């Protein structure tokens, strides 16, 4: 069943065209990987899908779970089940992870017509999910990403994903800057959450993450367009050959 359908999506920032007509369809339960050189528009695609308002959509449509995604404010997209693990998670000093996540979860529950979760039940969920992202208890009471190391911030994103149980999780270079142990934790977190009703869009610069999270499809984004699509083998090929040949072959006329 189609969960996300992107058709001819174009987007600008400050009158500069960044996305050049993206087409992509993701079915429930699938894992798609997007690769591509720096500056090709990977983060922009994630930002546009999640509704960052600096970007103007100039053309195209995005259907998510049968709804017109581009019409919704970012918080509603999130409540509907769209999650982004940020490439650069921000710090929110003084706001505890636990309070923040309880509010986030309750917003989602409210959207789905459910009552707010009891604090005791919530703490139980937190303890469970903390295991998935292998995080310490003190993570929960610390300020959101406040003083976290790069790796801790990334694991906190996975932790949040585990709590919010999205229909589609976009991971924006969650593997960048991680050592192999941290990378495995992220991969295990994702694998633990694999489910026929959940899809992933994994943005990565390197194929090594894909050794641990095996994608159903791999796409190459270049100059704001998906120029190649394939399976796991495409990632390996890119690893071997680098991005230069892509740049040459698909340089815009």
């Amino acid at each position, binding site marked *: 069943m189609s969960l996300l359908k992107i058709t001819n999506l174009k987007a600008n920032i400050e009158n500069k065209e960044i996305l050049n007509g993206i087409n992509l369809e993701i079915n429930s339960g699938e894992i798609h990987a997007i690769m591509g050189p720096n500056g090709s528009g990977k983060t922009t695609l994630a930002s546009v899908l*999640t*509704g*960052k*308002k*600096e970007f103007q959509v100039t053309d195209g449509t995005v259907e998510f779970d049968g709804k017109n995604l581009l019409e919704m*404010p*970012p*918080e509603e997209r*999130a*409540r509907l089940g769209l*999650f*982004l693990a*940020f490439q650069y*998670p*921000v710090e*929110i*000093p*003084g*706001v505890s992870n636990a*309070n*923040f*996540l309880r*509010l*986030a979860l309750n*917003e*989602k529950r409210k*959207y789905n017509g459910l009552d707010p979760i009891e604090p005791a039940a919530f703490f139980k969920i937190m303890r469970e999910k903390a295991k998935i992202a292998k995080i310490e208890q003190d993570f929960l009471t610390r*300020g*959101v990403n406040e003083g976290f190391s790069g790796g801790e911030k990334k694991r906190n994103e996975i932790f*949040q994903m585990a709590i*919010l149980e999205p229909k589609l999780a976009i991971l924006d270079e969650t593997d960048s800057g991680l050592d192999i142990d941290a990378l495995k934790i992220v991969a295990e977190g994702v694998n633990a959450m694999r489910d026929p009703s959940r899809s992933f869009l994994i943005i990565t610069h390197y194929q090594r993450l894909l050794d641990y999270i095996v994608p159903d499809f791999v796409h190459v984004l270049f100059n704001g367009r998906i120029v190649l699509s394939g399976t796991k083998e495409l990632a390996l090929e890119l690893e071997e050959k680098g991005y230069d040949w892509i740049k040459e072959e698909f340089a815009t006329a």
Partner: protein
Amino acid sequence: MAEQNNLIEEITKSEYKYGFVSNIDQDITPKGLSEEVIHFISQKKNEPDFVLQFRLKAYRAWQKMKEPTWQKVHFPPIDYQDMHYYAAPKSSSKTKTLAEIDPEILDTYQKLGIPLEEQKVLAGVAVDAILDSVSVATTFKEKLQDLGIIFCPISEAIQDYPELVKQYLGSVVPYSDNYFAALNSAVFTDGSFVYIPKGVRCPIELSTYFRINAAQTGQFERTLIIADEGSYVSYLEGCTAPMRDENQLHAAIVELYTHKDAEIKYSTVQNWYPGDKEGRGGIYNFVTKRGLCAGDNSKISWTQVETGSAITWKYPSCILKGDNSIGEFYSVALTNNYQQADTGTKMYHIGKNTRSRIVSKGISAGKGDNSYRGLVRISKSAENSRNYTQCDSLLIGDQCGAHTFPYIEIENKSSIVEHEATTSKISDESIFYLNQRGISTEDAVGLIVNGYAREVIKQLPMEFAVEAQRLLSLSLEGSVG
């Protein structure tokens, strides 16, 4: 820009929740201030001569004084002859039990979210509720009496404990201290009185809800808290006022006095009517709050969350006279629309090894103007003293202002003073991050602001902290896009 303006517009749509007027028969003096009015107030309250003389001396001093002009706030001239100086609910003169209280008054409190009946059973909080000038109801009294704690309206203390009042009234804030203090000393109508005897730790938090009710009535409370040797008390002051078109003057005095080894913790959540989006109406809040750590090893701690009032002029201060005494000031001041706040603290170090800590968090939104003004003075005698000051400003939008005026005077070489200051804005990145987790922009701002203010909020007793967090979010509704 256009979007920003729209959103700033939207702020003002969140109406002041506590704007309603009770119909209670008033006992009111004619407008204006004179020696006759002071005699009238004093007679009405059946005061002993020393109180009347105190008032008259203050009035005469006030007449010779000028309104201060150094603060960074602007307001049209106040006509002190165009207001009433005494208003009392008629039915309240003899009330002692809850059953006898005018049901409308109880209803008023209910709208404020402090049903007295419930308060009485709610563990841990005793309420001395003040409606305009006269204390209407005091609960928990008996329980406290067993410990020798006195907690009553100051008018009652003047009747029942004149010696104590005589000894301490004006001992921390002299009647001639400043313009507004002199005015208060001349015409103060009521307020709270607390005395904690030697060695007693007050087992509950004492709490007063102030409320301004009658139109065009100046409000002049006077609170006096004395902690005798080795005692401890935590006192909460909360304020709300109904919506009014005209500005109302509020000039209160709070005096705290700690003896040896004693501690007073004084917390305020101030939510008086801030005026409308055009800057019309709202309370003028000119308050003198000061604590004297008279005894060695004593401690006074002020915590304030100021979200209301059109103008806030307030510098809760500590005089650290006793050796090893400690003064603290934790403050969150929020200004939105046309609100102006000039607030801070003064720490006077006199005793040896005295310590003070200042944490000030200003939040400006809309066209609000927010100034921190603080004095740290370490006198020659205050050897080995220390001060730490942290002074942060958070700006929301680009039409507001934040200013800091730190004054530091050190007269010895063995003391250390540290000052840190930051200014920050709420970033679009932070808001988007929270949006992406399903949190609306309004809630995101509330969350970020509460996180920013956390160091201060966590000083507040639990139930007050929750109220303060709610108020901060409420006061900023719609202020960011």
